[in-house]
C-alpha cells in the first residue's frame, strides 16, 4: 500500500518557483530519500508533506486520503530537524513525552522509557537538552518524533550538523531503528553518497523539479538526466550524436545500444584507468589528488577536463593514456 503520495505538487512564493509539478509515491515502511543541491526543493517537499507549507497546486495524500490544508498536528507525522529543535525549557523526558499528551497512550511514562532505551539514552531522562552533545540531542529529537508512533517519519538533514564519523554511526543507527519499527520514512539530504548508502529508493531534485526516482543502484548506474549523471557520483559527460549505432569520443567510435540521434553519454572515472582496454584517450595531467585507495587525476583532453582514476600519482604535465571498454559507456536517459 502506498503510505504517502504527492501528485502534481507545485509551490510558488510570488514569482519564485520552489517546486514544480512533483509527483512521487512512498511505499509503506520504505526509507525514501530526497536528495539534491541546496535550493533544489527537497526541503520544501518535506515541509509540504508535514503540512508546514500548503502547495500552490497539486495534492499530498496520506494512505490515499488527500490532506488539503490539514494542519501538521492532524497529520500523524514525526519530524526531526537539522538543528534538533529540542524544547530548551523542558527536560529530555518531557521533550519525548510532549507529543504523547495529544494521543491516548495508556502509559506515557513507560513509553518515554522505551524510547530512551531505543536510542540508547537510558538515564538521561531528567537532563536538560543544553547539557547534551550534538549526537545525543539528535537521538532525543528522534525519540521525540517517534514517541506518538507517527505514520510517517520526516528527517530534514538530521545529521549535517555532526562530524563525519559520528554522522556515519548515527545514520546506521537511525536506519536500524527504522527497519526495526517499519516506519515509513522520508529523509532529506544534500549528500548524494549518504543518500545512496541508506535508502530503499532515492528521488533526485534539481531546481524545484524531480529529476529521477529509483533505487540507489538504478540512479547510479542508469541516470536518466545529465544532472543526475553529474550529481550522483562523479562522471565524465559527453554530448554528441549516435550514428549507425556508434558514438564518437575523440577519434574513437564506440558502439552503443541506443537508437541513432543526439545523445548524452557518460563514463565514470573508475572506468577510465591506466592499462588495457578496447579504446584509449590521451591527455595532459593538470592535477592529481591522492585519496588513499586511489588517485583522482584531472586530465586536459580536447579543450575540456576529464576526471580519471589511477593507482599511482602522476606528475602534473605528464601525458597520460587511459583506456575503457564499450560496456563502460552509459547512455543517459
Amino acid at each position, binding site marked *: 500500500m502506498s503510505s504517502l503520495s504527492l501528485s502534481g505538487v507545485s509551490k510558488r512564493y510570488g514569482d519564485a518557483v520552489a517546486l514544480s509539478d512533483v509527483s512521487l509515491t512512498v511505499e509503506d515502511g520504505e526509507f525514501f530519500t530526497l536528495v539534491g543541491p541546496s535550493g533544489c526543493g527537497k526541503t520544501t517537499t518535506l515541509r509540504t508533506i508535514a*503540512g508546514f507549507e500548503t502547495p500552490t497546486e497539486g495534492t499530498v495524500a496520506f494512505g490515499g486520503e488527500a490532506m488539503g490544508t490539514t494542519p501538521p*498536528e492532524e497529520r500523524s507525522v*514525526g*519530524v526531526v530537524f537539522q538543528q534538533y*529543535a529540542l*524544547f530548551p*525549557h523542558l527536560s529530555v523526558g518531557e521533550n519525548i513525552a510532549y*507529543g504523547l499528551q495529544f494521543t491516548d497512550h495508556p502509559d506515557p511514562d513507560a513509553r518515554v522509557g522505551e524510547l530512551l532505551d531505543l536510542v540508547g539514552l537510558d538515564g538521561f531522562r531528567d537532563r536538560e537538552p543544553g547539557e547534551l552533545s550534538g549526537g545525543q540531542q539528535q537521538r532525543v529529537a528522534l525519540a*521525540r518524533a517517534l*514517541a506518538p508512533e507517527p505514520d510517517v517519519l520526516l528527517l530534514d538533514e538530521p545529521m549535517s550538523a555532526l562530524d563525519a564519523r559520528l554522522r556515519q554511526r548515527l545514520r546506521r543507527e537511525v536506519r536500524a531503528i527504522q527497519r526495526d519499527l517499519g516506519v515509513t520514512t522520508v529523509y532529506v539530504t544534500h549528500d548524494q553518497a549518504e543518500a545512496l548508502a541508506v535508502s530503499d529508493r532515492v528521488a533526485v531534485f534539481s531546481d524545484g523539479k524531480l529529476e529521477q526516482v529509483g533505487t540507489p543502484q538504478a540512479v547510479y548506474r542508469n541516470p536518466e538526466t545529465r544532472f543526475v549523471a553529474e550529481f550522483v557520483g562523479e562522471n565524465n559527460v559527453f554530448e554528441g550524436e549516435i550514428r549507425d549505432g556508434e558514438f564518437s569520443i575523440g577519434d574513437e567510435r564506440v558502439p552503443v545500444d541506443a537508437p541513432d540521434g543526439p545523445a548524452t553519454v557518460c563514463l565514470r572515472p573508475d572506468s577510465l584507468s591506466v592499462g588495457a582496454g578496447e579504446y584509449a584517450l590521451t591527455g595532459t595531467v593538470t592535477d592529481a589528488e591522492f585519496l588513499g585507495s586511489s588517485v583522482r587525476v584531472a586530465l586536459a583532453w580536447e579543450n575540456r577536463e576529464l576526471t580519471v582514476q589511477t593507482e599511482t600519482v602522476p606528475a602534473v604535465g605528464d601525458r597520460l593514456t587511459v583506456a575503457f571498454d564499450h560496456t563502460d559507456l552509459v547512455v543517459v536517459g
Partner: protein
Amino acid sequence: MPSNRVAAPLAGVATAALLVVMFYYPVGSVLAEAVTDGGVTLAPIRGVLADDFYTGALADAIRSPASIPAGLAGWLLASASDIASALAGLVGALVSPFETGLRSWPGAVLAGIGGVLGALAGVVPGFGLFGFTAWQALLSTVASLALGLPGAYVLARFEFPGRRTLESLTAVPFVLPSIMVAVGFVAAFGVNGPLNRALAALGLPTVELLFSLEIIIIAHAFYNAPLVTRIVAAAWESVDARAVETARSLGASPARAFRDVVVPQLLPAVATGALLTFIFTFMSFPIVLALGGLEYATVEVWLYNRVGQLDIQEAAVLAVLETVVSLGLTYAYLRYEAATSRGDRVSSPLDRDPLVRFDAKRVALAGYGVVVAGVFLLPIVSMLAASVTSPEGLTLRYYRFLLERGAEATSAQVSPTLAVRNSLLFGAGTLLLAVPMGVLLALASTREGRLARAVGVLSMAPFAVSGVVVGLGLLQTLVFGTTVLGHRIVVGGPLAIVAAHAVGAYPFVVRNVAPLLAGLDRRLVESARALGATRNRALLDIELPLVAPGIAAGAAFAFAISIGEFDSTVLLASASGSDTSLYTMPVAVERFLGKQTLGRPTAMGSVLLAVTAGAFIVIDRVGGRYRE
C-alpha cells in the same frame, strides 16, 4: 478545532480595537480639532504659523515671502559683528592674569565663554516658540553627545571592575520619572543646593541656575547622554577586531585604522543617538515645566498651558504641528535604523585595555568621571539628602508627612498617601492592559506578511506622540464623553489615566518581547505542531515560556513607565479643577515643588526612585537571560 483557530485573530482584533479607542481615536480627535471650525479649514494652523509668538522671524516670511533676502543679509552682518566682539572678550579674559592676577581668572574666563555662547545664542534671530523648542533640543543633543560619547569610549574600550554594572545602568533613564530628575536638579543646583554651597565655601560667586536654559539642557543631557553612550558603545563593541587588524596589516597607522574602519561604523550609531535625543528633547515636558517655567516654555509646555486656559483649538493646532515634526523625525529614525542595522554577532570584538593605570589619556578620563559624577550622581544624592534634611538637621518628618497626610486631607489638598495608592493602582491597571497588548502586538509584528508589518509600525506610533497630546485626546473624547452609534460613552478619569499609561507603556513590552520571539527557531513551533499541538497550544507550551524573561522585563518597564508618567496624567488628573483625588506620585511631586521647602517633593521623589529602581533591577536581572 475552529475555536482554536480564531482565538488568536480575535485577540488581535481586540487589541487593535483597544488601540483605536485608547490612542488613535483620541489623538485623531485632537488633530481634527485643529482643522475644523464649523467646516474643514487651515485657518487655525496658518494663524499659529504666521504668529510672531510661535514662529518669530518665520512669521514675517510666512506673511510676506518677498522680504526674505533683505532680512537675511541684515542678519548675517549683525551676527558676525556680535560674535567677533564676544570672541575678543574671551581672548581678553584668557590673557587677563597678566593684568589682574590669577585669582579672578577662572571667573573671567567663565564669563568670557558665557559671552561667546550668549553671542552665538543671540545671533539666532528667534523663531518664536517653535524656534526655541528646536534650539533647546539642538543644544540638548549637542550636550548629550558631549557627555555621552566619552562614556561610550570608556565602556567599549576599557576593562574595569563594575563595567557591566555601568553598562546596564545606561538603561536607567528609560524608567526614571522625569519629574523626579527635575526635583533632583532643583535640589542639586538650587540657590541653597550643594553646588552653590561648595562654590561659596571656595569663596567663588554662586550661580543662579534654576529657571535657566542651561539647567534644562543639563537635565536633558542627564536623561539622554546615557542613551547615546548605550547606542554608540554597542556599535563600538560590534566592530570586528579583524577588520582593524586587516587595515593595520595593509599599512594603516592606529589612528588611520580608527578613522577608516572604526569611525564609519560608529557614525550611524552617533546619528541614531542624536536623532533620538532630538526627538525626546523636542517633546520634553516635565523637565522644562519644572526647571524652566513659562519663561522657557517649549511647544509642549505651552500646549499644556493652553489646555489649562481652555484654549483647546490653539492647543490642538500646537499638537498637530508638534506631532508632524516628531512623526517626521521618528519616521526618519526608523528608516535610518532599518537601513543601517546589521544585527550579526561579531566573533572577535576589539580587546579592552585596563582602565586603572597612569597616563595623560586616563587623567583626562578621570576628569570626565568627575563631570559624570556631577551631572548624574549629584542630583540623585542631593534629592535623597534633601528628603531627610530640615533646617534643624536630620529628620524623617517628610516621609512621615507622606504617610500621615492621607487621613485628614481634604479634596483640595494634595494627599500623599492617596497619590501613592493611585500610582500603585494605575500601575497595576497598566500591567493588566499593556502586557497582553504588548505580547499580542509582538506576536503580530514577528509574523510574516505585509499586514503584520503594518501592525508593527502602527503599534509603535505612541513613541512619536507626546503624552500631553494623548492626555488631551483622552480628555476630549472618553472623559468628556463621546457618542458611538447613538450611545453616550463616558469613561471615568481613572480608566482614562490607565489607558494613557498603557499607551505609553505597551511599546516597551513589544520592544522587549518581539526580539526574543523573532529569535526563536521556528522549528521549535513546527516540532510541537508535528507532535500534535495546535498553533495556540504551541504558543502556550513553547513560545511564551521561552520569551517569559522578555515579558517580565516588559512588565517591569510598563510598571515603571506608569509610575513615572507625568505628561498625560497631570492633564487627566487635574481635569476637574481643584479635585486632587486622582493625583499620582509624579503629579504630587510637581505640586509640592512649588511650595516653600524641598522636603516634601524630594521625599516623594525618593519614593519614586525606590519604586523605579526596583523595576529596573527586575528588568536587568531577567531581561537578557535567554538572549545569549
